[in-house]
């Protein structure tokens, strides 16, 4: 105990063996020349074991949204694929047991079990066959439009990409944006005001429509962000409530100021031609230039999140707002700006709906896109490109679902069932693992 205890140099020279330029190798602690220094310089993993030993409950304290993001992002692609498979199987079972051919054949199951199996096969293959052809390519269709369903898929995917990005971006800052629906409605309403009430030269008009839509969505999203930042109001509750307020608001406007005088229904006049997205493949297909806007948005959001300083702030705030604040980031500004951007993206989704496919504003302009956006973001694991592919998949479900309803007489509602099951399974990897008896490859930290 003489006080020559200098086993850890205060000024560690960069020349310590194995340390610089080789982060893979754990650096070796300084000299351990003191007598009795038995276990002090143990294996590099040992201190880690100790630091956490007394507080294994730590993950509980994490904010719920960030925990979700972590779970979503740490799952493997395998889980996603299997989740889709299981969801489709369950959907298939539903289709089969509600098919009268199957139930009839089951009546004489013990006489002719094969008949039941055949009926089941026929029922499911017919439905999913129609789904697949409707979403991709149908050689049997009479018209070219019907044949190339893939373009219909992309048309449906366009607003899903944009609104999915909206949810994804907010997610990464630790906010659940359940309000895509309201933001889409407001975006479409603003876009509509510019699109059918004002006359502008081509090009500029569309640009103005897009800007107006983005502002409308940003405004609606910004309310939730502002209240979250300034009063701590939970964004989930606020955005849900704003969705319904948006519906009432647009209904009011459609009955009064925005109403098409020639119609008795609460719908707006048609958008001016100059305010609409040009069709990409001519008049036979609905696919419009909104898709290009959506793809650009994916690129921008991807850069924003991963490469920009703003995205760095967002990720830090999302994972640990208190530490972000201590490091000098303005958390409340982060909440407000991200909800503005997120709302703008959803607003643009509204623009693509109105100026791309619908052309007339009604109260149901958002359809189910608002909630689909959440499922898309979850399936896309809160990553911009993941969201893009998830949106394409769900777009395919929508395009194929329509064809399935017509050609196989299976209600399009089955698509909602499959979609929600996919998300449930993806969110619960242990369930999928237990279904397929997959062992967890590697445990991820302390997560339970």
């Amino acid at each position: 105990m003489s006080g020559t205890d200098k086993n850890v140099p205060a000024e560690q020279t960069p020349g310590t063996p194995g340390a610089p330029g080789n982060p893979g190798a754990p650096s070796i602690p300084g000299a351990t020349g003191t007598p009795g220094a038995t276990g002090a310089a143990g294996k590099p993993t040992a201190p880690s074991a100790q630091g956490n030993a007394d507080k294994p409950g730590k993950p509980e304290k994490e904010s719920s949204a960030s925990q979700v993001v972590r779970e979503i992002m740490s799952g493997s692609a395998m889980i996603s694929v299997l989740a889709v498979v299981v969801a489709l199987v369950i959907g298939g079972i539903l289709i089969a047991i509600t098919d009268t051919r199957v139930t009839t054949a089951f009546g004489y199951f013990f006489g002719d079990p094969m008949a039941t199996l055949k009926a089941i096969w026929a029922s499911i293959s017919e439905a999913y066959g129609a789904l697949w052809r409707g979403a991709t390519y149908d050689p049997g269709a009479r018209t070219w439009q019907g044949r190339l369903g893939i373009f219909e898929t992309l048309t449906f995917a366009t607003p899903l990409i944009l609104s999915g990005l909206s949810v994804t971006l907010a997610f990464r800052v630790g906010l659940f944006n359940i309000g895509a629906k309201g933001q889409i409605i407001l975006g479409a309403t603003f876009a509509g005001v510019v699109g059918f009430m004002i006359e502008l030269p081509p090009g500029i008009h569309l640009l103005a429509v897009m800007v107006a839509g983005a502002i409308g969505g940003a405004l609606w999203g910004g309310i939730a962000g502002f209240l979250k930042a300034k009063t701590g109001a939970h964004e989930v509750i606020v955005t849900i409530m704003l969705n319904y307020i948006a519906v009432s608001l647009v209904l009011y406007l459609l009955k009064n100021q925005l109403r098409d005088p020639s119609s008795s229904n609460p719908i707006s006049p048609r958008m001016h031609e100059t305010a609409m997205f040009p069709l990409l493949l001519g008049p036979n297909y609905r696919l419009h230039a909104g898709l290009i806007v959506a793809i650009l948005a994916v690129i921008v959001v991807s850069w924003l999140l991963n490469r920009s300083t703003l995205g760095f702030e967002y990720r830090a705030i999302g994972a640990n707002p208190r530490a972000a604040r201590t490091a000098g980031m303005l958390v409340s500004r982060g909440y407000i700006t991200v909800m503005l951007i997120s709302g703008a993206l959803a607003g643009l989704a509204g623009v693509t709906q109105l100026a791309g496919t619908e052309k007339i504003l009604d109260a149901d302009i958002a359809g189910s896109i608002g909630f689909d956006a959440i499922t898309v973001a979850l399936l896309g694991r809160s990553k911009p490109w993941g969201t893009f592919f998830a949106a394409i998949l769900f777009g395919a479900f929508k395009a194929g679902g329509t064809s399935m309803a017509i050609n196989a007489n299976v209600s399009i509602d089955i698509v909602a069932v499959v979609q929600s099951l996919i998300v449930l399974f993806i969110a619960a990897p242990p369930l999928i693992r237990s279904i397929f008896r997959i062992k967890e490859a590697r445990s991820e930290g302390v997560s339970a």
Partner: protein
Amino acid sequence: MAAPNVRCTSRDQYPRRWAKTLKLELRGITKSFGTLVANDHIDLVVESGQIHSLLGENGAGKSTLMNVLYGLYSPSSGQILVDDVPVNFSGPADAMAAGIGMVHQHFMLVPVFTVAENVALGAESTSFGGVLNLAETRRKIREISTQFGFDVDPDALVEDLPVGIQQRVEIIKALVRNSKILILDEPTAVLTPQETDELMDIMGQLKAGGTSIVFISHKLREVKAISDTITVIRRGKVVGSASPDASTTELAELMVGRAVNLTLNKADATPGAETFKINNLTVMNDAGQRLLDDVTLSVSQGEILGIAGVQGNGQTELTEAVLGLHKHVLGSITLDGKELVGKSVRQVLDSGVGFVPEDRQDDGLVGELSIAENLILDLYKSAPYSRAGTLNRAAIAKNAINKVAEFDVRAQSSQDAADTLSGGNQQKVVLARELSRPLKLFIASQPTRGVDVGSIEFLHKRIVAERDAGTPVVIVSTELDEVLELADRIAVLFAGRLMGIVPGKSSRALLGLMMAGLPVAEAQEQMKSQSESGTTEEGAQP
């Protein structure tokens, strides 16, 4: 070092109804979380009616062991015996039924419930149909309060009570359930030295009444003062047992595993200009209560000011106010003559303040981000780490490699998430980041909480090195030992008010009185009268 005034009533004086005592034995208890072994074949015997101390560093596995004993965790292997009968606890209910009670380090009280509701919870008296009958519980609380001299109102809301009283509610909870073995997990961490003495008094009474006590602590003095037997745990293993007469040095060596130099060798401070000044600083919460009340102090270049006090007496508010994290601040804080009050955190950091927050996991690090990203958490906007709003990944990676080497951060890769690191290494990351800018003021709050001894020495040396480089340094710690070791001057806070500033080599007793709320003049007065009447608890060696 004399023992504090524990009133040791002889057991024989107590009525026989308390005589039923329990003996507790743990055999080969192992508990692992994944690959990490928190407890490794631990054997422990707590004789009935004894105070058995479990001594070990932070993270040695003491709390895990007690959670196993209390049925909160199920052991990976091993056996628990109560009065030589093997028991198997599937939950705390079983442990309680076996007569084991526990006062947790973080109190297990529902803040919005009353004392009576908290005590009743899980062991409710009910009348017909499960309707609560709290009258019975209130009666028991009063009975126990009278017996031990507690002043606890059964109808007070727990969230309104000071921590000392909350701890008594926890003890009442255990006693109401007829616990014969009481586990106290780091009970003194939240108490002043005087409150600690009171607690030890209570422990003495309980022991006299036949209750066996397991006392968990990493504070050598307390353990020596109260224990019948001491078991030392290190890295999840029992490394030895000792009697209370063992010397502090012996116990410390056993606990840490090698000879430890309990005092840091640092040169005397050579204070320069007083560049950091706090004048009449008051900090309020949203309800308008003063968390910090009219505090004035200053720190010179090349000097460490230690801020002592029991947790929750305004230290957090003081450091957070400097950093600009508080909304309601009155008074002034100046650094090099520039006012910091009213500035944003960003501006404060940019004016040359380095800050190590007291809770690194909550405030210091973003666990999900990589070590490299955490090392630039407050520098990401400046060159070379970003340009025109775009991050420069190469520069970030290069910085990480340098800092990991310089601060001896033991990690597989600097791209790993920060929460994969141990406590000590996490703290090194925070320190590395905060010391990587040219500083005009360095504030470190609880710089070594939950850190292993090897890292503590390293961290302390870096802090002293920063002082020697001429930076004013403020260290906030609730560990009096740490303050005494590092500080050139010591300021003591109590209930948000400054009790005074004393030299770094002041006596523990004096500081204890100040931490209990005596202004320095009165504390010195009392010290003097005590030494005159010859009842000094502890030598006041300057």
